[in-house]
């Protein structure tokens, strides 16, 4: 079932929007491209490419307040991009935003730096539906710091039950790490309820917003997220950039993770002192042009309105779910009370990879596999799924193409 939330926003004009995405105007073999792999990475509008090109062709230099004009321009543009991300996430101040290379680096930073503040035996609660990015770093931190990982199982419908979280919180629980939207089933996890419980128990709330931020308006304060992670390439921005929101008072307590230029205050041969956040967490030359492109992507998204994007993806989801319900031999994973823009399916007697290859022949780009969520696959008892994930440029007609292709697959495999 798609979202029960009703969005009040003008519907997206996909005809106009698609003109902003030249990559969509191509054929794959003999068929027009149908890009349903947005959860892996979305495409970017020309506005983003142009912002980066313009920056490279007029203002590029290394940042960090070099004394010359280009460096000043570049620094200002970079810091404006940081402020843009802060605004996008509803952060209080720009210094709460750390620019990373992707979402994964943000989790590694947290697991190492925040993990280092914990005591041996402290517990980290991680849900069963996490992407490896929000699990493996915690496993490694658990090893390094002697922490205990505790699992939050998912419900039968494929969501997380706050009551269940409550039961698992102990006096030793220091971190609760949960995805806002599942990258496999599209489940919208009730973050607000969970973060209230986490805070009541004295734990910090880490939220993986990689899949949520492109699909719904996010406000970290309203969610009660102490840390919130996003990645540029899923937000219609460039590759090579991500961002971590962290509550200012917590960032100030956290030790640095990577060492190098820009994050230091003073360096002697045998020891160093650190700068304030966010710089303490940004060692070396950051993705400068990528930050400019990222800000342009957020401008693009915000101009359309995230509520309109959410409504659009809900509409597509509802059509897709209705279509799939009528199709024999198809099973959609999970039935969460609220789903956003992503679903996974399995077919009797056709492996997801074979299905993926056949869909590709119809011009449809989908992902087949474990989607970097192997524990969830184990829980669902499937080796792999076919994931269909929507973006703001997808159209209802494309779901008809999908239906057609699935029928073709059944025909090829002789499945009823």
């Amino acid at each position, binding site marked *: 079932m798609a979202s029960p939330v009703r969005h009040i926003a003008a519907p997206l004009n996909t005809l106009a929007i698609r003109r902003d995405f030249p990559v969509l105007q191509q054929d794959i073999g003999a068929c027009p491209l149908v890009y349903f792999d947005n959860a892996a990475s979305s495409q970017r509008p020309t506005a983003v490419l142009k912002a980066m090109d313009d920056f490279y062709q007029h203002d590029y230099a290394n940042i960090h307040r070099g004394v010359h004009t280009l460096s000043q321009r570049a620094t200002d543009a970079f810091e404006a991009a940081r402020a843009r991300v802060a605004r996008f996430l509803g952060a209080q101040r720009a210094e709460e935003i750390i620019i990373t290379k992707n979402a994964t680096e943000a989790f590694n930073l947290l697991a190492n730096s925040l993990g280092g503040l914990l005591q041996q035996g402290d517990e980290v609660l991680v849900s069963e539906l996490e992407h490896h990015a929000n699990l493996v770093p915690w496993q490694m931190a658990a090893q390094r710091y002697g922490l205990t990982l505790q699992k939050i199982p998912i419900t039968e419908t494929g969501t997380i039950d706050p009551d269940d979280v409550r039961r698992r919180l102990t006096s030793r629980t220091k971190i609760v790490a949960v995805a806002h939207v599942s990258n496999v089933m599209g489940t919208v996890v009730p973050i607000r309820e969970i973060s209230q419980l986490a805070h009541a128990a004295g734990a910090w709330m880490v939220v993986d917003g990689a899949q949520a931020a492109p699909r719904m308006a996010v406000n970290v304060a309203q969610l009660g997220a102490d840390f919130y992670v996003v990645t540029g390439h899923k937000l219609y921005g460039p590759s090579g950039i991500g961002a971590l929101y962290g509550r200012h008072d917590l960032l100030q307590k956290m030790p640095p993770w990577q060492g190098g230029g820009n994050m230091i205050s003073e360096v002697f041969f045998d020891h160093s002192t650190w700068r304030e956040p966010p710089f303490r967490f940004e060692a070396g030359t950051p993705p400068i042009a990528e930050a400019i492109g990222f800000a342009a992507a957020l401008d693009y998204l915000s101009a359309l309105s995230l509520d309109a994007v959410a409504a659009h993806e809900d509409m597509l989801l509802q059509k897709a779910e209705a279509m799939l319900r009528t199709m024999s031999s198809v099973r959609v994973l999970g039935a969460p009370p609220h789903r956003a823009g992503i679903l996974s399916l399995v077919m009797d*007697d*056709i*492996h*997801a*990879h*074979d299905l993926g*290859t*056949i869909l590709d*022949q119809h011009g449809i780009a989908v992902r*087949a*596999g*474990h989607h970097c969520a*192997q524990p969830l*696959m184990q829980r669902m008892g499937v*080796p*792999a799924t076919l994931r269909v994930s929507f973006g703001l440029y997808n159209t209802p007609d494309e779901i008809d193409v999908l239906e057609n292709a699935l029928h073709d697959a059944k025909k*090829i*495999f*002789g499945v009823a």
Partner: protein
Amino acid sequence: MDVRELYQELILDHGKRPRNFRVLNAATHTAHGHNPLCGDKLVLHLVLDDGGKITDAAFQGAGCAISVASASMMTELLKNKTRDEAQKLFTYFHALATGETTPAFPLNDTDTARLQALSGVRNFPVRVKCATLAWHTLKAALEGATTTSTEGA
């Protein structure tokens, strides 16, 4: 490339009803194969007699039609081959699947048809590893290794 060239009757048949899909308790050689990108996994069992001839071959595992069919056909092909012939067969099939020129290799008609069917993957580069997983596992088993993966293969 039409996907129907990949999913020929023979492949679909072996994919759906794999031959030699069982445990071989008498196995003298066993290896596990894993494709970490897609998660396909299989175990290959071989019985080699004292003269180095493969007297039985079987497998178990989960994967797509291509990887299951490939394992199934391979176990059929292996029977009564010597270790040396099996190794040559690996080289032959690897070249066939990756679209390189294949070394001369004497095969009977049934075997030729099997390999020909499997070689449809050469036009679907991303699926080549599905077809070669079983074969890499064979190579590992013959070399005495117990696990292999398609990493870098």
